[in-house]
């Protein structure tokens, strides 16, 4: 038995000779993605992941892991396996040919008009 200065460890009566086997599939709960909202009307932001056997439990865990500092007004939990995830190998699909200033805000020459309008005020 482990004897520790921390009485909680001693109370747990942990046997040193116990060999620990790795968990098998389904020995663990599945994961839920947790999103929180800072104030009503804001977008929900992803804040982390919890293990849980169902959505209700995922909520009670998510609330305490990520919402206990008083920064949230609302939480969503979503099963990780229900989230469609794009492949990092396909990261190139986010690249774009840079010579297209006609579709960037910088392509619009409006500052002159804005300054003129401001002066007019």
């Amino acid at each position, binding site marked *: 038995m482990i004897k520790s200065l921390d*009485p*909680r*460890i001693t*109370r*747990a009566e942990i046997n040193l000779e116990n060999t620990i086997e790795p968990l098998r599939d389904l020995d663990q*709960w599945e994961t839920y993605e947790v999103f929180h909202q800072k104030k009503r009307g804001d977008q929900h932001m992803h804040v982390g992941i*919890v*293990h*849980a*056997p*169902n959505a*209700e*439990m995922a909520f*009670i*865990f998510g*609330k*305490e*892991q990520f919402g*206990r500092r008083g920064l949230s007004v609302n939480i969503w939990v979503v099963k990780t396996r229900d989230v469609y995830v794009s492949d990092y190998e396909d990261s190139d699909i986010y690249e774009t040919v840079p010579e297209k200033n006609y579709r960037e805000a910088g392509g619009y020459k409006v500052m002159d008009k804005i300054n003129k309008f401001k002066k007019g005020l």
Partner: protein
Amino acid sequence: MNQNTTDAIKELLYKMADDLLIIGHRNSEWTGLGPILEEDISFSSMAQDKIGQAQALYVLLNELGEQEPDTVAFMRNANQFHNSQLVELPNGEYDFSLVRHFLFDHADQLRFEALANSSYEPLAKVARKVKGELKYHVFHGNTWFVKLGSANEESHNRMQAAFNEAWNYALGMFEPSKNEDLLIGEGIFEGEETLQEKWLANITPYIIKAGISIPSSETWKPVYGGRVGNHTIHLSPLVEEMSEVFRYDPTAEW
């Protein structure tokens, strides 16, 4: 406020604060040892909430002339505590801790809910402040209790056994005080009997949902005594451990 009323309020505050301090400490014993990481954090966080609620009540006692909160919490002996025996029992396995959490927190929530309209305004104020914390604690307790009560044979049997073990101690939470009439009469608190009725009505739907049976009422034997300082052998070691560091140097600045 006359002396009798002050004494009655103090008695009420002491039993509530001591319940919260002791169950907060007991529940904190799970820190680092909880069944899974997420639950470990949740249970520990709630334990801290309870210590905070206890502190708020010790502050009220201090305002009524009692000693500093730290002194009251850490310098008394076990027989000077007014907590119910339910909260001092050892944690046992997680099933017992969860059942106790479920039974205690329902009572605690209803007690504070009633006190939110208390004629003793300082306490009403605290009661309104802790409303959100208690709501979460009860939701947490309900979720685990129903889930494990009805998950599989092993979990059900464990929850039923823990429930049977806790039941008479839980009834002991409602030990009547000598000040019941005064507290009710002055609109300070609705009284233990009313509280117990409400508690029973509130927990019953979850107990049914969990498939747990309540012992038949002829067999009920509420374990009283905690409110007047009679405790099990388990409280003294808890108080010693809890106050060990404080007593080492009571004047230390933290």
